[in-house]
């Protein structure tokens, strides 16, 4: 008890936007400082590394186009997660739902290559949405019927989905004309999304993402269903009291967020790869980065668009420094992890006031 001072947390009565902004900025700065130490330990000048990340992400027309390309799946999956998190349903398995979306879309593309594009592509998106939604329905069912924590089940199903992709590309869907590589045949032209000029921006998916962000925003803020979702998230007891079925809301937000992640998977196979390939090739962790997208956006689907762009840039810039500075491939994952850590940690400072007493 001879401590010179003690630190005490006092709950803030009201959290202002200014406080939120300041703590978020500070969290990001601290995250960068921490990662700077990692860079330093790897023998790289942190400032130089940050400079390269920035120019690698936003410094040229090409890098900008790549950043936009990578932000497409982040928008779709991230927007879905804002919805789930608003209901305090912690779907952290968007990565798996994305892969299932990719599988369903690939199945349609490979089996019906002769369908016209205006039928096949919508069918792939609808199928991918349903696939992702059904994948998320499993943890939903487990949670609502048997009270199994969705954090565990959604995460574990990521690995199941990933192995399913592996099974398909090494097994039944392995392309005969791909000289033994574990990839499927290339999709027919009808199953390929158009791209913007000579970039990789598959703009139909981008437009879909922007539309979805707007729609989910309206759903949460302007409809009675969104009101129910917010009530369930804020106080399940009050929701029950008001006659809202918690389990219906939980299933709904899980399936919607899963479906949107599924759409992201469709975009990747139909817009980038034109085939099903190894899981990390389809998604370098978009589904996990989407958690960060949603959290940085303070669970606002509209703000998820810029945060997806920012984190898309981080992925592109991260690739750039991996190559340029010969850093391990996991560097960017450390990046994401550290940022998420600080952003969630910063919540303490928005919810509480820190007092130092002597």
């Amino acid at each position, binding site marked *: *008890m001879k401590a010179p001072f*003690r630190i005490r947390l006092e709950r803030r*009565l*009201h959290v202002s936007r200014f406080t939120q902004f300041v703590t978020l900025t500070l969290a990001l700065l601290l995250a960068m400082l921490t990662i700077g130490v990692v860079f330093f330990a790897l023998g790289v000048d942190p400032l130089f590394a940050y400079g390269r990340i920035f120019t690698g992400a936003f410094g040229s027309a090409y890098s900008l186009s790549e950043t936009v390309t990578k932000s497409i799946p982040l928008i779709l999956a991230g927007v879905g997660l804002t919805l789930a998190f608003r209901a305090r349903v912690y779907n952290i398995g968007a990565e798996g739902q994305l892969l299932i979306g990719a599988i369903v879309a690939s199945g349609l593309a490979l089996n019906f290559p002769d369908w016209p594009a205006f039928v096949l592509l919508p069918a792939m998106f609808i199928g991918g949405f349903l696939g992702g939604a059904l994948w998320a329905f499993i943890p939903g069912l487990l949670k609502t019927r048997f009270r199994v924590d969705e954090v565990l089940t959604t995460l574990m199903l990521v690995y199941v989905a990933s192995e399913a992709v592996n099974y398909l590309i090494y097994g039944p869907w392995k392309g005969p004309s791909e000289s033994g590589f574990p990839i499927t045949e290339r999709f027919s032209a009808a199953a390929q999304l158009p791209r913007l000029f000579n970039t990789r921006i598959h703009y139909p998916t981008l437009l879909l993402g922007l539309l979805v962000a707007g729609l989910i925003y309206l759903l949460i803020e*302007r*409809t*009675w*269903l969104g*009101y*129910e979702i*917010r*009530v369930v998230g*804020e*106080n399940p*007891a*009050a929701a*029950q*009291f*008001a*006659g*809202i*079925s918690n389990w219906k809301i939980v299933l709904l937000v899980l399936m919607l967020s899963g479906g949107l992640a599924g759409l992201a998977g469709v975009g990747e196979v139909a817009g980038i790869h034109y085939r099903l390939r190894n899981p990390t090739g389809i998604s370098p962790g978009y589904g996990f980065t989407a958690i960060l997208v949603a959290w940085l956006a303070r669970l606002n689907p509209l703000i998820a668009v810029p945060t997806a762009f920012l984190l898309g840039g981080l992925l592109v810039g991260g690739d750039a420094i991996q190559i340029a500075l010969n850093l391990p491939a996991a560097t960017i994952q450390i990046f994401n992890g550290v940022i998420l850590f600080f952003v969630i940690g910063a919540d303490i400072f928005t919810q509480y006031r820190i007092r130092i*007493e002597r």
Partner: protein
Amino acid sequence: MTLASPAAGSATVAPPAVEMRGIVKRFPGVVANDGVNLEVRAGEIHALLGENGAGKTTLMNILYGIYHPDQGEIRIKGRSVTIRSPQDAIRLGIGMIHQHFRLVATHTVAENVVLGLPGHFFLPDRNALPRIQQLSQTYGLEVDPQARIWQLSAGEQQRVEIIKALYRGAEILILDEPTSMLTPRETRELLAILRRMAAEGQTVIFITHKMDEVMAASDRVTVLRQGKAIATLETRQTDERELARLMVGREVLFRLEKTPPQLGPSILRIENLSALNDKGLPALRGISLEVRAGEIVGIAGVAGNGQRELVETLIGLRPASGGRVWLNGREITGAPPRTRIEAGVSCVPGERLTGIVPNMSVADNLILKCYRRPPIARGMLLDSTAIAAHSDRLIAQYAILTPSRRTPIKLLSGGNIQRAVLAREISGHPSLLIAAHPTSGLDIGATEAIWQLLLEQRKSGLAVLLVSEDLEEVLTLSDRVAVMFAGEIVGVMPAGEADLEQIGLMMAGAYRQPVGGAV
């Protein structure tokens, strides 16, 4: 500002147990304590009286080391001390029982009692048992040390809190609104325990806003108003009227306009209703009751005798295991909550927080029961203009004090939150209102206002089922009183003919009205 006069005749030789001088504590936007002086003599029961927000709890939180005062001095037994934390306070022999219990719901009583104490890492139950049982017996604090907290009623949980403080060797016991969740009998028992403790030289400070408790149990009383200590009086030399005036700052008139009931048709009919509690044991054993339009039927009883389960079963949160319920002649026994709401069941729930969504705005809370119906909903969309109009109307009509309809409802005072809940429930034009502990934790002014609102609703033809552990409330408001014990209704009588002694015996399970009495 009286105080600090070392008593004219009976000069105390020993220094006061607690002396707080010039205590100032500011919170953003408010001065919770504005130069408060408090002197508590060793071995006395000292009441701290004041309305909600008067600064009572803040002052005691300072004494218990939860807050640090901005200014002021604290002396314990004459020695100047700095209390930095509850650990410091406990070491000085101060124990505090908060209004909202601080217990781990999934742990047992014994585990909670020894939580955080050294030497109880292994088998806390077994090691702590003898002393817990001894404390239990000495003070009549009956509770099963092996029970888990979530299985206990509020009254039982409070006993655990008291045992917890005594176990830590408290000599100065602070109780924050200790009777707000107790029945009259439990209250009497608690006050008896406090008096016995005081007789043995222990010092008791209790925070309250109920004058009858001050009169019944305290030796001296300090009245707080708006962060200032207004007066310290010998209880014997004052009366409820003077205390009320000091506390509110004006004359208080307890004048409720209660006209004879104008009975309408039968609204709620319960026949032989049974239900299980959370442990799967019978909580309701064949309840039969009728509530007619224009009357208030009050349910009196000690906490944990099935009142909560009855309310939950009636609003559809708990399935009935037997029996039937009709509303307006339509059976609703198995109906889900929403069907009941639409059929005209409204409810002001006991635990105030389950009725509201704390972080949401006042406006969003006011639509919780009507957000799916026009004019609030238009198709899938919510009409923000209609929401604004609806909430502004209720805020004005029910005089809800709030900076604006956009203010998060948790920032409102308890009385205003309860007004908002009541306003919302009544505004849907229900045929039945279930009011469960509608004024628990409210001060006199707010209680009076809520009572007035309930009587107005009765006059306009609403059927009201009032569930309360506050017997005064039940007797003041009800037209008929039903007494619940062990999941049964052991008697029903017109409130005018209610005999306090008889009700007391019924609540204790010692007497039961002969079968065939009016239901």
